[in-house]
């Protein structure tokens, strides 16, 4: 820790980029006046509501200012009961005015309504919503769909990709049938990075229809070889 006092603030900040807010605040608080000062002025905290010690959680809620938070991810963990409720009893989602990235990994889709409230700020650049169903998008996604064109990064099950998203650079699609791939890619022609899981189906010519992706530097392709059994009840 003495070594940390000798490091320039920029270097400490670049170490913080690899850590969650609760890890930073738990590990570096009360070590020295210099470090406490660095913690107070850091404005890129990434909060992850995941499995953590209760003491870490309490410390984070006590010390962090919502305006210091750049990124908020909500997981779904059985082992930390009421974590999300406790968090939102300390903070209102609309206090996070500098948020750039919001992630709902939880299967609790009601969190999607918090995202809808958040969208009025127009600062979001990254959205992770792999479990949000089409029904929720239709019911509560009005404001969210408005901000999709400004996003740089999106993780989704594929539903909202029905309009061209010219700014999008990083896209993860958790599942797509191969016959839909050409349509999907034609909406996001400026992508730098694509991470996609596809299922092969009976259309053999899908690879020929893929549009030219002139900016794509990284492709992560997972091919799911599910055998699909559809049962139809006969009368």
């Amino acid at each position: 820790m003495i070594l940390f006092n000798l490091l320039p603030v920029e270097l400490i900040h670049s170490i913080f980029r690899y850590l969650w807010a609760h890890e930073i605040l738990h590990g570096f608080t009360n070590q020295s006046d210099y470090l406490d000062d660095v913690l107070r002025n850091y404005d890129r905290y990434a909060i992850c509501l995941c499995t953590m010690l209760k003491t870490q959680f309490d410390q984070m809620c006590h010390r962090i200012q919502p305006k210091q938070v750049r990124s908020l991810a909500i997981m779904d963990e059985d082992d930390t009961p009421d974590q999300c409720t406790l968090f939102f009893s300390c903070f209102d989602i609309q206090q996070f005015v500098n948020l750039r990235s919001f992630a709902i990994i939880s299967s609790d889709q009601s969190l999607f309504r918090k995202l809808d409230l958040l969208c009025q700020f127009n600062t979001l650049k990254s959205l992770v919503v792999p479990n949000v169903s089409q029904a929720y998008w239709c019911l509560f996604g009005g404001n969210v769909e408005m901000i999709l064109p400004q996003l740089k990064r999106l993780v989704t099950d594929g539903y909202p990709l029905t309009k061209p998203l010219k700014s999008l650079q990083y896209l993860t699609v958790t599942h797509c049938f191969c016959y839909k791939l050409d349509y999907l890619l034609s909406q996001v022609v400026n992508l730098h990075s694509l991470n996609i899981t596809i299922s092969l189906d009976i259309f053999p010519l899908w690879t020929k229809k893929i549009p030219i992706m002139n900016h794509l530097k990284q492709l992560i392709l997972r091919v799911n070889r599910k055998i699909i059994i559809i049962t139809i009840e006969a009368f």
Partner: protein
Amino acid sequence: MFFFLLTKDRRLTMGQIDEILIKMPRLIHFELELEDPMNVLGGRKWESWARQHLNLDIEESMDIIDGNQWKYSVSHLQTFDFRFYLSKIPSTQILHSFQSPFWLEQKRWFVAFDDRPSSRCLFTVPRFAPKSIIYSPDYPSIQCTSPELCLDQYVNTLTLPVLRPLTNDFINVTSFVLERNENLDRNTILPFLQLPNLHSLSFVNLSLLYVLPSELILNSIRTLNVKTSVSKSRIEQICIIFPQVERLEIMIDDNDTMLSSIDGLKYLSICKFIHSYPSSMGALKREWFQEHSSRLKTNDHFTYRINYNNIHLWMSVE
């Protein structure tokens, strides 16, 4: 009466992969995973039915496991990683085509083959080096094109199905799972518990506690999973051997054992108790915990959730 509509997919061919890559002229990083061919959509019932009744001979495109074929498609890339699950046993020389100067010297891309029937696959390392392994007596079962690359260093979870001596250098293992503890022997088991980065331990019966030296204290263990019922006297022993435990999952027969671990492990924060006799649990409310646990009486910063016989607690530490 039911009808079945079955679509049987085919493996991606080399020609299709070329067609994808040609549409992406500036690509520099490519990762390709072909998953388990026997993955039935439609539930477990259909999976067992399909395994029994369909003689699934899914077409295996042999060209994609040929390193010489790949050479022409991926030579412009900076990184290329893949993992292909294989349903048939390919020739024993499967790695041969990945040992040309193109793979080993020009690109320095190394390939390994895991030939255990449950996970037979061909993959690049270190990207797809196994992180969780079953340390059976015939380990290692993986061949690799790089003789220098030690795959042991990528393992973080070690499962021991039967007792065997520790003869590999698992410097990064953080989690150790003892699946059967019959005929445990102190000198064989201690080296596992003393792995340099170990902080998580799981075991299925208490015989481990009997073979450990009586004065042993394992301060490094922060996560403990005991998959058997524990009595009150045994939990007191556990509290002495593993005093730094922060996360605990354990089976209990009575509420007293639960209270002993809450009060005995002072760093405990995240815990799950699985009650063997849910009918004897009684109505566990917040007040009950505060009344019966000396720790929760003085520090009421905790939350709990009860789900049939599972009791989750999340507690602050003074």
